[in-house]
């Protein structure tokens, strides 16, 4: 197993080893294994999209919301701080009234 999803409804998986762009990762989700073509290097412990995620979509891990996509995240692309924002502790938004 190269990566793991915690529930079937997760939209991201976590890499269990460094993954290279172009390889097909075996993604364990409970008792089943899915195959995802990796688009770019994913370091150990980092996440990638297991379905195409669109700008504004909520991102799910553990079957729970971990944030919102700030850009489209294609299937197999690195999903991290460059394309996911937090919905909590956002003092920056509170002060501008956004």
């Amino acid at each position, binding site marked *: *197993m190269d990566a*793991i999803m*915690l529930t079937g409804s997760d939209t991201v998986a*976590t*890499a*269990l080893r460094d993954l290279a762009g172009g390889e097909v990762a075996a993604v364990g989700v409970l008792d089943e294994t899915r195959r995802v073509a990796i688009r770019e290097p994913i*370091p*150990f*412990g*980092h*996440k990638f999209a297991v379905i195409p995620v669109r700008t504004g979509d909520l991102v799910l*891990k*553990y079957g*729970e*919301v*971990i*944030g919102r996509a700030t850009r489209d995240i294609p299937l197999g692309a690195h*999903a*991290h*701080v460059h394309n*996911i*924002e*937090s*919905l*909590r*502790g*956002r*003092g*920056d*938004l*509170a*002060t501008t009234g956004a």
Partner: protein
Amino acid sequence: MEFLGFRRSDGGVGTRNYVGVLSTVVCANEVTDRIARSVRGTAAFMHQQGCCQTPLDVTRVGEVLVGLGKNPNLAGVLLVSLGCESVVVEDVAAAIRSSGKRVESVTIQEAGGAANSVARGQLLAQELVAEASAMAPVPCPLSDLTLGLKCGSSDTTQGLFANPALGIASDLVVEAGGTSVLGEVTEFIGAEHILARHAREESVAARIVELVRRMEERAMAVGCDMRGGQPTGGNIKGGLTTIEEKSLGAIAKAGRAPIQAVYEYGQRPTATGLVVMDSPGREPEILTGLAAAGCTLIAFSTGRGAPQGFPFVPVVKITGNKATWETLRDHMDVYVGTIMDGTESLPAAGTRLFGDLVAFASGKLTKAEISGYTNSMDIYVVGPVI
């Protein structure tokens, strides 16, 4: 299952038998350190607080010092004060004495400076250690154990492996009648709905949600996105993207036991079972809070490798990250990366960890105790230095 513990006259049971040398104010740290370094069997607690703070925080510091002094891992206590600070050393001493312990104090301005205070303190500490050394550990049920839960220097391996394993171990402590204390309210943000569902009753759920609101508002009051502070830069390098993701992984260490009650920072639980204590996630403040709440053992999961222990409470470092286990051997105590490579199931690793925790409770030394990486502590205060 039993552990070897030190029974105190107030009913508490310690996993260790130190004489605590507690500084009551930042200005007394130097003397505290010198006394403790020169008397075997002592443990120094130093911090940056105790004076020029709001009355609310002065009260907090005093209460935390009392909580630390009453911790069952201490057989006796020597308080070291400067003399002019806001915290009233006599009050702290009297409150600790009510637990039946011998408490002595040295005041630098009365003793005639640091050198005289160190000399007087050494003699008092030697007496206290001589008395403490006569106490022997006896087999105690796990219902006498108070376990603190903490994770730090996190990466994504914790939410997947180390915290779920610790959750199983914590549930086993609770099933045996013991108490587990979950802090790190910052790391409830985004996961509080799950913790609230685990609450014993509605009022407990409401208190959990309220603690999170208070902590989140504090963070937001500075007008920034808290990302970078929480999750930290290191967390982000480890693959954690948002506080929600960090929290969802962090709360796994509390297992599935119902949450019985919610306490303020450093407050000693009266309930048994799993309880929540208000605290931030940073090590110096939360480890002190857990110790002040009476935790006699702390289980600390880490991904990237946090080194901190606590002066008189063993802090067991648990990692599921193979690279951290292999490169930080002088800091890591238990490895659960076996879950990831498939050589051990999660329940088996959790049960093994539980056995390890009992061994550490019974006197097996943690890496932090062996290396003495235990001194950089502080007390969580809410107001400014004034």
